[in-house]
């Protein structure tokens, strides 16, 4: 019995963390967030891709590494610690799972190897299936899709998008389709891109296995929720580290502020609440691949619980930094905002908890 990340998974995570700490300082994050340096952003993306992220979840017979979701979690934690400004949850976790479970053999042959080799890229928009806000929602009719998708993730440089209709049937659209309008949404989190898609009779390549089988889209959403939680966990870990080290240096009243119990106790509270989240997250990822009966409940509970803990950490860690925490100089807000986005994407805590209750038959 061994409960935790394997040596290999820890190593993979360390590579990601090291790449980010060596190459992506707050100054770099700021340039990317402000859109000031496209070349820098491209270099960082390709540097991270060179670690092999794109093929991680793609089966070996399609040119990938055939990893499990826990391996993806270990990467996502690493990306979260350095607010890695790249696509992951949508392009390299939800997409390969959607194609592997939902696609026919032709579709798998056509897309999976090219995703692994980084020749093509997918964005993912399943927000409407979770909760359709405002006028969003897509209708499928005779192979054509019309409607709107909001908060499509990982859409930067995407060649294709995976979307779904209200019933959970997933399909692929080409970004060059004339009926597709791509609109950029500006959120607080500028380390990643969020899109609105407007579809008018866009050609939809349906993933056949997903027709009348909501199990698959739910599985894809579970995976997405687990990965977004891993990202928030990593970001929280980093915020606690920053708060603790700042508190050990900053002096007031002739003492480092980290010697005041008011400050120490905030740090202890953050650490105490975050620590069980690691195990919760890893168990959810493990169940995703090995324990289907428990998987959905664990994914929902991990998404909501970690979102709540991460929110608390992002607030208290900022407070420990005092006025500096509030400034752009320190850039702590990039972590704060990343946590803020992960919390809402694919369902905020209340919505996800309601799903967890439904799964257990609690609301009749």
């Amino acid at each position, binding site marked *: *019995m*061994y*409960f*935790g*990340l*394997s040596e290999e998974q820890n190593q993979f995570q360390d590579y990601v963390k090291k790449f980010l700490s060596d190459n992506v300082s707050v100054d770099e994050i700021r340039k990317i967030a402000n859109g000031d340096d496209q070349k820098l952003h491209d270099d960082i993306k390709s540097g991270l891709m060179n670690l092999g992220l794109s093929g991680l979840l793609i089966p070996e017979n399609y040119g990938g590494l055939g990893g499990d979701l*826990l391996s993806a979690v270990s990467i996502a934690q690493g990306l979260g610690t350095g607010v890695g400004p790249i696509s992951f949850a949508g392009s390299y976790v939800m997409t390969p799972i959607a194609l592997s479970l939902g696609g026919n053999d032709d579709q798998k042959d056509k897309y999976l190897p090219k995703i692994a080799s980084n020749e093509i890229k997918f964005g993912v928009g399943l927000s409407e299936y979770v909760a359709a806000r405002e006028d969003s929602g897509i209708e499928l009719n005779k192979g054509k899709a019309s409607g709107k998708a909001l908060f499509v993730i990982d859409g930067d440089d995407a060649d294709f998008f995976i979307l779904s209709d209200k019933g959970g049937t997933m399909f692929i659209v080409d970004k060059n389709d004339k009926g597709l309008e791509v609109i950029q949404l500006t959120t607080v989190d500028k380390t990643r891109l969020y899109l609105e898609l407007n579809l008018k009779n866009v050609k939809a390549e349906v993933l056949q296995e997903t027709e009348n089988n909501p199990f698959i889209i739910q599985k894809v959403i579970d995976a997405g929720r687990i990965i977004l939680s891993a990202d928030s966990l990593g970001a929280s870990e980093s915020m*606690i580290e920053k708060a*603790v080290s700042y*508190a*050990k240096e900053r002096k007031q009243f002739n*003492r*480092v502020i*980290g*010697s*005041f*119990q008011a400050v*120490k*106790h905030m*740090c*202890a*509270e953050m*650490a*105490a*609440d975050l*620590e*069980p*989240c*690691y*195990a*919760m997250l*890893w*168990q959810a990822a*493990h169940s995703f691949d*090995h324990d289907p009966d428990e998987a959905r409940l*664990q994914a929902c*509970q*991990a998404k*909501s*619980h970690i979102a*709540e803990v991460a929110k608390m950490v992002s607030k208290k860690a900022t407070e420990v930094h005092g006025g500096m925490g509030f400034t752009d100089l320190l850039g702590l807000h990039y972590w704060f905002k990343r946590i803020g986005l992960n919390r809402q994407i694919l369902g905020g805590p*209340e919505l996800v*908890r*309601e799903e*967890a*209750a439904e799964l257990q038959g*609690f*609301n*009749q």
Partner: protein
Amino acid sequence: MNLEYGPEYEDFRAEVIDFCKEYEGISFENTSSKNISRSEWQKILIEKGFIARAIPKEYGGFGGETDIIKSRIIATEFSKAKIPGGMGGQGIDMLVPTLLEWGTEEQKQHYIQPTLHGEMIWCQGYSEPNAGSDLASLQTKGELKDGNWVINGQKIWTSTAQYSQMMFCLVRTEPQAPKHSGISFILIPMDTPGIEIRPLVDMTLNAGFNEVFFTDVTVPEGNIVGKRGDGWSVANSVLGHERGSLADPNATMNRLNTLINMMKEETIDGRRLIDIPSYRDRLMQVQGKVMANQAHSLRLLSSKINPGQNVKLGGMIQKLVGTELRHEMEALAIDVLGEIGTLYEETPRLKENGSFQFHYMYFLGLIIGGGTNQIQKNIISERGLGMPKEPKVQEAS
């Protein structure tokens, strides 16, 4: 990640399940047909190796090796089958491991077996009115006179003192030494002349604690465990054990299930409590925390059998997180019951024997006791996160 324990352990689990079936419905109540005394039950469990597993046979234990996976399996299956576990208490949980580490051969022979068998009950004499969180400043005085320790002073928060045959006690024997090195660990028979016990009724209305007064209490010199002045180290070698055990994850899961069942049965205007969205959302929040803690306890278990897996911080948070969670869970039960939730003691319309109110208060006690949760936060931040200690304040003149 590998959550399988392996065939050897699954065989063991099957054995435990069979045992649970054999003793299904067992009870310590006289009214039950399957009545058994606690100490008989204790002996059966030791014989099977379900408790006192790693304690040598010559001291009344099972004489096997520590196997925390087996302990976990036992705890889980007993909890599922609602079979009572072994006896706990200060003697079995704290004194026995202490004696195994520090005691003389004679002390081990004399005390461990009757303690394990439930024939010798112990209480712990640590805290004093002016030595709570700052335990090392304790002042109960022990002087060596003619081959005997003569003890004077007062202890407080002494649970089970009124039922105990023995106390293990921290006593200041070296008044000239620095505060941590002037303490000795001494064993005191509770029927020694000069001991007075006054029950201390707590907010649950039980006398869970006592005050114990010592006036020229005289015990033999050989009742010391470890050397003179070693008492702080002796006591601390097992304190960690108590903190880890204050909120058992199996018990927490059982309470959550009790809460869920109650919310399915009780109604407002004919509507089940669990169908009321705001109540249901709070329930789901608590369930999320319970699931996180269950997973965390598996990670801690794993770290004990896989050397090199580092969960130092993970172990330190258990008491803080576990007690706060239980308190929050019981508070939720009271809130969803509303006015009904305030009923207590013997009264019409009482739910679950008043256990929600009882545990709500009891766990507030545990938040304070066993090293207050504020002290836990100091430990987590100083030892876990490497933050500096509070600077020492100059002695007030």
